């Protein structure tokens, strides 16, 4: 028997091995990718990630405490950056979805609190002179967002759910007046059945901003005077 069949058979087996392992590798990759995971798996993953995040946030806090007050930081910059927890007189506003049963044909969307409702509340608080604000324990800093993410609301990239507790430090009278203006935000929300309660407090505690440094693109300009 001549050996001229060796090369073709070798080539065929190389092709076969190649096909086999490529397909197997791809199947393994696919099984490990997200879409084929079941909801339960994803929930476990999410829970683990959230636990890891909570642990890391604790670490940030202890490390910040260890770092002490660096020379560059002053109380004023810490306050402005949300790097310290603050307390003082202020308001606690609790907002939750409408408890009224929906009438037939009514849009269920009007009965729930949306991100723009929270945004408007926060905006009114600021116009009423709020110095520090937190929503469900998330300190609002200069880069904080209040966005809609499916059925939940994102603040500082954390999901928050009703009831929404908005704490603010400032003059309680001014701030509650700003909210309760005729035709203002509270009236607007109550028109749709959203439950809003305002309580003036002599002592409100607002936690520090728990995220990391959030300046990657903006760099300070080394110039004595501000370009304007």
């Amino acid at each position, binding site marked *: 028997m001549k050996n001229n069949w060796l090369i073709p*058979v*070798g*080539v*065929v087996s190389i092709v*076969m091995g*190649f*096909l086999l392992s*490529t397909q197997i590798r791809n199947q393994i990759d*696919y099984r490990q990718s997200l879409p084929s995971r079941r909801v339960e798996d994803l929930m476990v993953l999410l829970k683990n990630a959230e636990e890891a995040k909570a642990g890391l946030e604790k670490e940030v806090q202890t490390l910040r405490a260890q770092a002490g007050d660096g020379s560059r930081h002053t109380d004023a910059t810490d306050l402005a950056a949300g790097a310290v927890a603050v307390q003082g007189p202020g308001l606690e506003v609790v907002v939750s979805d409408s408890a009224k049963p929906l009438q037939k044909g009514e849009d269920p969307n009007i009965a729930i609190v949306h991100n723009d409702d929270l945004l408007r509340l926060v905006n009114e608080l600021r116009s009423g002179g709020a110095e520090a604000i937190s929503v469900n324990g998330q300190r609002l800093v200069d880069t904080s967002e209040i966005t809609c993410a499916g059925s939940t609301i994102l603040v500082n990239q954390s999901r928050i759910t009703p009831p929404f507790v908005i704490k603010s430090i400032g003059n309680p009278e001014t701030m509650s007046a700003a909210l309760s203006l005729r035709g203002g935000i509270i009236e607007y929300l109550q028109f749709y059945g959203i439950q809003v309660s305002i309580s003036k407090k002599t002592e409100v505690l607002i936690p520090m901003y728990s995220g990391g440094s959030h300046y990657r693109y903006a760099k300070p300009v080394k110039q004595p005077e501000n370009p304007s």
Partner: protein
Amino acid sequence: MMGAIVTLGGLILGILLGAFFPLSIPQYLSKYFAVAILAALDTGFGGIRSSLEERFGLTVFISGFVANTLLAAGLAYLGDQLGIDLYLAAIVVFGVRIFENLAKIRRLILGRFWTF
């Protein structure tokens, strides 16, 4: 003997190549790929069997390998276009044939080494 070495060596080389060559198959093509592999496996076992029976034909083997692979994938694709799972038929046919070939190979090897 040479044949076994070349075949095994080729398989191992191919598997290593496939493991490290970053070729990714989109998920929707993966089904056709799997059917093609099944056809290729069938042809491979058929080749082993025919060489044990000492009626191995190179042209039949190579043409069978190429044609079976392409036809299986093509039929699976056609089935998808028609809205029937024709690839299931390919899986059944090639699966049965692989088992038949394996049984034949086992008997041939047994017959070669142990004669009762």
